[in-house]
């Protein structure tokens, strides 16, 4: 039973990977414009026809589309994505430099928003209909509707420009020669505002899911039974309700984890944070195909892995979904 299930699931993932990789390959090429300007620089218009052809041939872009597609699969299996048109650097190296920064801010903000969303959501549901619940609900819905670039700029203008207590850009102070603990403090200081922005934006989603899931669970027969048996408020809340309500939150978190990478594009742009999102933004603006392909692949992998984790965790958290 389990094995059959696994095989079907595996096939599903296989199809998703195939479609995603194909889209990653096609999307950049479907966009109008071409990377010639990026490769040749500002003076692209001054190139002769032969020089243009030479540049295009250097990049392999004159190959038929199927051939480029096969090469892309080759790159995926060998892990060699070639060189950026823009900087000439090996793409694997660029992603390796950028990925940890993105992981740092997305990981921290997801952890904080998961904890905050679950706790506040549970509390809110427990106090359903009372002023504190309504206040939290209104507050969270307002937060969720904030545009990320606006929130980021607001935080910069308050914490950096007005009060001067936090750096406004980057991941470290440039050319500061800090080492050890000072360096770590520098990194944390620079991460505070981007993490705060991402956390503020992702907490409401967790909160709302947790709250509704709690409310639903609170109405279940077994809760009423537990209460009738004389189980106290806090014990029911944490022992019965919260535990059973958490399953949908896992799904929300998994989805957020997957999309967190893409969600950092704007925040990294606002804070000039040297993560993957900014790399993608630059690559898209310049039609840097190989960088786009490789970065999209990382995004795809993140979504798939997050889904896989959710799939694996779900039966463990909620025994009702176990197959057997």
């Amino acid at each position, binding site marked *: 039973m389990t094995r059959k299930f696994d095989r079907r699931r595996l096939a599903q993932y296989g199809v998703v990977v195939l479609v995603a990789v194909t889209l990653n390959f096609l999307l950049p090429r479907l966009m109008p414009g071409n990377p010639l300007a990026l490769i040749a620089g500002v003076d692209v218009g001054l190139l002769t026809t032969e*020089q243009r052809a030479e540049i295009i041939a250097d990049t392999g872009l004159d190959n038929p589309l199927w051939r480029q597609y096969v090469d892309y699969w080759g790159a995926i299996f060998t892990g060699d994505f070639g060189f950026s048109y823009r*900087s000439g650097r090996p793409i694997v190296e660029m992603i390796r430099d950028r990925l940890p920064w993105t*992981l740092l801010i997305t990981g921290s903000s997801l*952890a904080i928003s998961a904890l905050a969303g679950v706790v506040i959501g549970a509390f809110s549901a427990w106090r359903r209909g009372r002023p504190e619940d309504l206040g939290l609900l209104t507050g969270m819905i307002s937060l969720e509707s904030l545009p990320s670039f606006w929130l980021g700029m607001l935080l910069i*203008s308050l914490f950096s420009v007005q009060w*001067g207590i936090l750096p406004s850009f980057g991941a470290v102070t440039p*050319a500061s020669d800090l080492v050890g603990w000072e360096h770590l403090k520098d*990194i944390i200081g620079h991460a505070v505002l981007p993490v705060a922005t991402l956390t503020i934006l992702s907490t409401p989603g967790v909160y709302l899911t947790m709250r509704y899931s709690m409310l639903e669970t609170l109405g279940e027969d077994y809760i009423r039974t537990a209460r009738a048996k004389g189980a106290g408020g806090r014990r029911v809340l944490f022992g019965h309700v919260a535990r059973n309500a958490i399953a949908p939150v896992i799904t929300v978190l998994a989805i957020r984890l997957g999309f967190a990478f893409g969600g950092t594009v704007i925040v990294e742009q*606002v804070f000039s944070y040297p993560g993957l999102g900014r790399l993608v933004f630059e690559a898209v603006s310049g039609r840097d195909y190989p960088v786009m392909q490789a970065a999209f692949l990382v995004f795809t992998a993140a979504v798939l892995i997050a889904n896989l984790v959710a799939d694996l965790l779900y039966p463990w958290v909620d025994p009702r979904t176990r197959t057997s």
Partner: protein
Amino acid sequence: MRTRFLVTRGALLLAALLFIGACGGDDEPEPEAPAEQATTTAPTTTAATANEMMDVPDEPDTPTTTQAPTTTAAAPPAEPVRIRAAVTGDEGTLNPYTYISGFPGWNLLMLQYDSLTQVDADGVPQPWLASEVTTNADLTEYTVALVEGVTWHDGQPLTAHDVKFTADYFINNAAASRFARDLAGVTEVVVVDDLTATFVLEATNPGFNLVALADVPIIPQHIWESVTDPEGHQFEGGTNIGSGPFRMTDYDEGQAYRFAANPDYFRGPPGVDELVVVVFADDAGAQAAIRTGEVDVIFERIPPEQIDLLDAQDPLDVLLGPEFTTQMINYDASIRPFDDVAVRKAIDLAMNRQDIVDTVFLGAATVGSPGWIHPGHSSYNPAIVPVHDPAAANALLDEAGYLDTDGNGVREYDGGQPMSFEIITNAPDSLRLRIAELTVEMLSEIGIQTSVSSVETATWENAVWPGFDVSQGRNYNIAMWGWSAPVQANPLRLPSLIQSTGFLNLTGFANAEIDELSDRLAVETDAAEREAILGRMQEIIADQLPFVLLAYPDGAYVYDSDVYSDWEFIAGQGIVSKLSLLPPSARP
């Protein structure tokens, strides 16, 4: 029992989630690793620079030993000047093959290298690495005499052999190199002696001094002769060895560059000891950082609405000056109805350029000359002035038969087609978007209906200039457009914009007299005669309107006057150059 077990699991799960997050946190030391390597090497660099800096005051002391103690005691060592500059975009590893943008990439490149001549504050080439440039009568030979005693950053002497090598190397490794194009037409470079070289050209080229000698960085033969793949070259120090006032010591992709002063610079040591160039994702970030004091200058024009705001803040100052970038209307002059000069003239007359300068640029721009050349430029024809007269524009269109027969406020052409068009512009340029919106209003006054289509830059470029190759045609009716400063700074480039075969002729314009004048301009050896040709060309442009030039945005640069204030504004090009960082006495 079972319940408790599950509670523990739930808690474990939460803990696991937190752990995932914490892992993110624990990853922190990982990105540190490359930075830490950098920081371990960096102190040595700083130390070396500091030592060298100390050597500078010491050196003159050495010959006059008796005075040395008093001098050292009297003059306290000056506080090193360190500038943090903001740019908005990574510029690659900044050697002649890997820098990215024409501005400020080329400008940062040229901090490390020198050209044979160097433009002064008026934009006129002056002797630099070459103490003298002489030409033969028909301008086919340019002979340069090098300054004696110039050395590369590694101490090797710079000679005429490096000059010849540079030309040969750029020509032989031509792909995508601006410098190969600068040097097109060079048949050979002859080394006369160690300090003299002659560029032999295949034809008369009056622009060679400005286009090639002031633009091409001279590169060291002993470094580059072994480089076979110049564009794939990563930063490792070697390919960034130049003769310039600064040497790049560190590069963190997407984050920062670090330059140390070259104390042995042939014009004297720079007035700035260390330059840190910080890479921002956009200009809003850079503006926030200069307000907080995290950077000291922005190597990028600031938008007009920021000029007063930033200038009002102490210790920030804003330096303003004329620049040669352009904001213009392009139309496809090869198709109906823009192939009719009456329509083009009407559009020109409808445009209130002063209103654009006041409304969009808040005064920080120069009203566009319909003849293309900036009034502050030495080749400007003063007889050409813009005229705003919508009534005359309407009369012109009426007379040419473009009438509004159905009374809906929009004229028709060619048997009833409404004169209704899309104006395409690039979304990231908000000033250009505002100009487009004003254009819609101004054209509606003469019965031409337009709507603005604001698209992403690559899409816009692809419509106006498909494949960056004018032979591929055009896919637009009306577009807002603009050229970078170099296109105008050198007036000899003008033919490329308007000649029927010009490679920058994006509007499909063709005019027999322009073609003839263009051919003459290219081979004219007499400077006064060249100016006369340029004057006539401006008249034809103002009359035939291959495009409608609206304004030249002024350059505005913000800097922290407590840190450094010796910025030099090069007319038409702004403050980002080695001139700004050299002491005034070392400037041309």
